[in-house]
C-alpha cells in the first residue's frame, strides 16, 4: 500500500473521528479480520475514540463444548474422524481430537473435503466433522452429495450478529462484516440489522478502508450496509453455493459456545440424507454419551470473550495456565481466536 494513500486514509479517519467526538465501538466478527488487525498493529493507528472489539467469528471458538465432546467420544469409540486442522486441539471433557489420536483413535487432518472423500474409499466408516459458517457449509454439502458421512455443527453467521445486538451486553456502533460469508450470502440479508455495517476484505488496506467507511457512516448519521469488498462480494452473493447448502441442509437451532441456543442458526442434515448424518447413523454410540461440562472450563472466559464482553487479558487463566502451548479453551487454540492472537501479538516488554 503506498504510503501516501495510507497516510490519507488515516488522516481522514482522524478527521471524521474528531468530528464524531464521542467514543465508538466497532466490532469485527471474522477471525481473519482479527488476525489482520493484530498483524498490522491497526488498533494502535486509530484515534483514541475509535475502539475495536472482537466478536464470535472464529468457527472453532464458537463450537459448543458438547459438540467437541460428541466427536471426540465418537473417535474414541473407534470411528475414524476427519477434520479441518484448527479444531484438533480444542479440549473437551474427553480430551481433544489430538489427544484421542495420540491414544490410538483414527483422526485425520484435511485441508479440503475432497481429501475426506478420497479417504472414505479406504475407510468406509469415516465421519467428517463439518464445522464452519456459510462459507464452509457448501463444501460439506458437496461432500454429502458425494457420499461422505458428516457430523454437522455448521452454523449460519447472521443470527449470531442479531443475537449480539438483541442481547445488548456490549455497545456495538458498527460491524466490520465478514468478507467471505458475504461472498456466499450477498448484501441484502444484513439489512435487517439496524447498525452501520461495511462488508470488508482482508488486506490491511481493505480493513483500513472498511473502518474509514464505518466512521463516515457514523459521522454522517447514516445506517447502511456498504460493500468495500467489491472484488469478491456481489449483491446476490453466490446463489449456486446457497442452493447447494439448502439442498442438503435445513435450518434448525444452532448450539453456540457462549450464546447457547440461537434459533435459526444451525444447519442440520435433511432426512433425505439421513444415512450420511453421523448423529443419526451412530445413534447407538451417542446413546452412551453423557454431557459433563468440563470442570476446568468454568474458569475459561472464552464464552464472554466471543460475545465481546471481556478482553482476553481479564481472564485469570490468560498467559498463565492458558497459552498457545497449553490452551484451556478454543479461543486460545485457534490461530484466529481472540486469546491466541492477543497472546502472540501483545506487547510484552
Amino acid at each position, binding site marked *: *500500500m503506498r504510503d501516501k494513500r*495510507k497516510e490519507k486514509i488515516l488522516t481522514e479517519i482522524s478527521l471524521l473521528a474528531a468530528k464524531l467526538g464521542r467514543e465508538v465501538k466497532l466490532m469485527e466478527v471474522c477471525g481473519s479480520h482479527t488476525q489482520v488487525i*493484530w*498483524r*498490522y*498493529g*491497526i*488498533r*494502535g*493507528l486509530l484515534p483514541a475514540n475509535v475502539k475495536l472489539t472482537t466478536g464470535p467469528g472464529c468457527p472453532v471458538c464458537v463450537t459448543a463444548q458438547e459438540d467437541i465432546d460428541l466427536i471426540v467420544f465418537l473417535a474414541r469409540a473407534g470411528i475414524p474422524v476427519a477434520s479441518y486442522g484448527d479444531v484438533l*486441539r480444542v*479440549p473437551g*471433557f474427553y*480430551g481433544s481430537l489430538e*489427544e484421542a489420536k*495420540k491414544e490410538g483413535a483414527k483422526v485425520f487432518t484435511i*485441508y479440503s473435503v475432497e481429501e475426506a472423500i478420497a479417504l472414505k474409499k479406504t475407510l468406509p466408516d469415516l465421519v467428517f466433522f463439518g464445522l464452519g459458517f456459510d462459507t464452509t457449509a457448501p463444501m460439506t454439502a458437496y461432500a454429502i452429495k458425494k457420499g461422505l458421512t458428516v457430523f454437522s455443527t455448521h452454523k449460519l453467521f447472521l443470527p449470531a450478529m442479531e443475537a449480539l445486538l438483541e442481547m445488548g451486553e456490549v455497545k456495538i456502533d458498527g460491524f466490520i462484516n465478514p468478507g467471505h460469508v458475504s461472498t456466499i450470502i450477498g448484501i441484502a440479508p444484513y439489512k435487517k440489522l439496524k447498525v452501520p455495517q461495511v462488508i470488508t476484505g482482508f488486506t*490491511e488496506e481493505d480493513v*483500513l478502508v472498511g473502518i474509514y467507511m464505518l466512521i463516515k457512516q457514523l459521522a454522517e448519521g447514516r445506517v447502511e450496509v456498504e460493500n468495500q469488498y467489491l472484488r469478491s462480494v456481489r449483491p446476490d452473493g453466490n446463489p449456486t453455493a446457497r442452493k447447494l447448502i439448502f439442498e442438503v441442509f435445513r435450518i434448525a437451532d444452532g448450539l453456540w459456545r457462549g450464546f447457547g441456543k440461537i434459533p435459526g442458526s444451525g444447519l442440520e442434515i435433511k432426512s433425505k440424507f439421513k444415512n450420511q448424518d453421523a448423529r443419526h447413523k451412530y445413534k447407538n454410540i451417542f446413546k452412551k454419551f453423557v454431557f459433563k461440562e*468440563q470442570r*476446568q472450563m468454568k474458569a475459561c472466559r472464552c464464552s464472554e470473550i466471543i460475545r465481546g464482553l471481556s478482553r482476553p487479558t481479564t481472564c485469570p487463566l490468560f498467559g498463565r495456565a492458558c*497459552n*498457545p*502451548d*497449553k*490452551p484451556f479453551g478454543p479461543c486460545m487454540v485457534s*490461530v484466529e481466536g481472540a486469546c*491466541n492472537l492477543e497472546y*502472540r*501479538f*501483545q*506487547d*510484552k*516488554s
Partner: protein
Amino acid sequence: MKNPTALTINLEDGGGGYKSWLLIRQLRKFLSVKTGWQHQQDDAAVYPLGKNNLVFTTDAFIVDPLFFPGGDIGKIAVCGTINDLAVMGAKPLGLSLSMVIEEGFPRGALFKIMKSIDQMSRVVRVPIVTGDTKVMDKGKLDKIIITTAGIGLAEKIISNDGAQVGDLIITSGDLGEHTVALLSTRFDYKTQIKSDSRPLCQELEAVGKYLKACKDPTRGGLAANIAEIADKSKVKIILEEKNLPFKKETVALSELLGIDIFSFASEGRFIAAIAPQRAGLVIKKLKRFNPQAKIIGRAEKGKGVFLKTGLGGLRSIEMPRGKLIPRIC
C-alpha cells in the same frame, strides 16, 4: 482433566519454538561438568587454545521428506553443521557422520544421500573423518536419522550475545525458502522454490569480523533466532516489515497454510547484528552472494522483538509456540 502429555516428551518440545528452548534448558541442568569450555549455549561450544579457539558442534537431522526440491537430508546434514561452525567465526576442520537406518531402507536412497554428503564435503573442502552406522528393526524408526558433529578453529568468536543498542540487524539474503520447499512437497503444492540450503563459509569469511552477533535462522525461523539474539544481548530488536526479503511464493504459502512466516526456516542464510557505520560495507560484500542481503532492523534499549508493520503500526513478534512445523531439519 489431567494433562497426561505433561509426563512425556511431545512434538512441540522439538519444534524449535518456546517449548524446545525450555526443554534444552531443563536438560542442560543435568550436565554438571563444564571445565574449560565456553559458549555452551551458543550454536557451538568453544575451547580456547591460546590465540586460537577450538569450536565444536553437533546436530541431528530428521527432515521429512528426505528428498526435497533443492536438496536432501545428506546435504543439510553437512551444511547445517558447517554453518553452525561458520556462524561462530570458525573455519571447519572435519565432520563426523553417524547414521541410524531403518531395516528395509532402500540402498539406492542411502547411496544417493551419501553422494550428496560427499558433494557438500567437496564444495566446502571439509572431510568426513569418522562415523558410525546402525540398523534398527523395521517399524522402530522412521527411515533414517543422521547426526553430524563438526570441529573448527576460530581466531575470533562471533557469539550471539554481542548485539548492542544502536546496532543494525541484517540478513544475508531472502528468507524462509527451505520451509517453503518442504511444506510445498508435504502438502502437495507445486512451486519453483527450492530449499535455500547451502554453506555460509564464504560469506562469513568475507564479513565475519564485522559481526557482533550471528545466527542462522533454521529451526524456529526468524522469530526464534532474532529472539535469542535479543534475549542474550539484552536489547530490544525492531524489524521493519517492508525491508524483510520474502519472495512472493513464501508469503503466499504462509497465507495459504495459515503458518506464521516468521517461523519459516532458512538453511543457507544468516542474520546478524553489526555496528551502523559498517552496514554499507557489509551489505555491499554480501550482495555479491545474494542480491537480497539487506538491513532489516535495529537494536534499541529494552527487551523483546517487535515488527514495525507496513502500515506503520508496531506489534510484537514472539518466539513460535503452539502449532509448529515438524521435521523441518
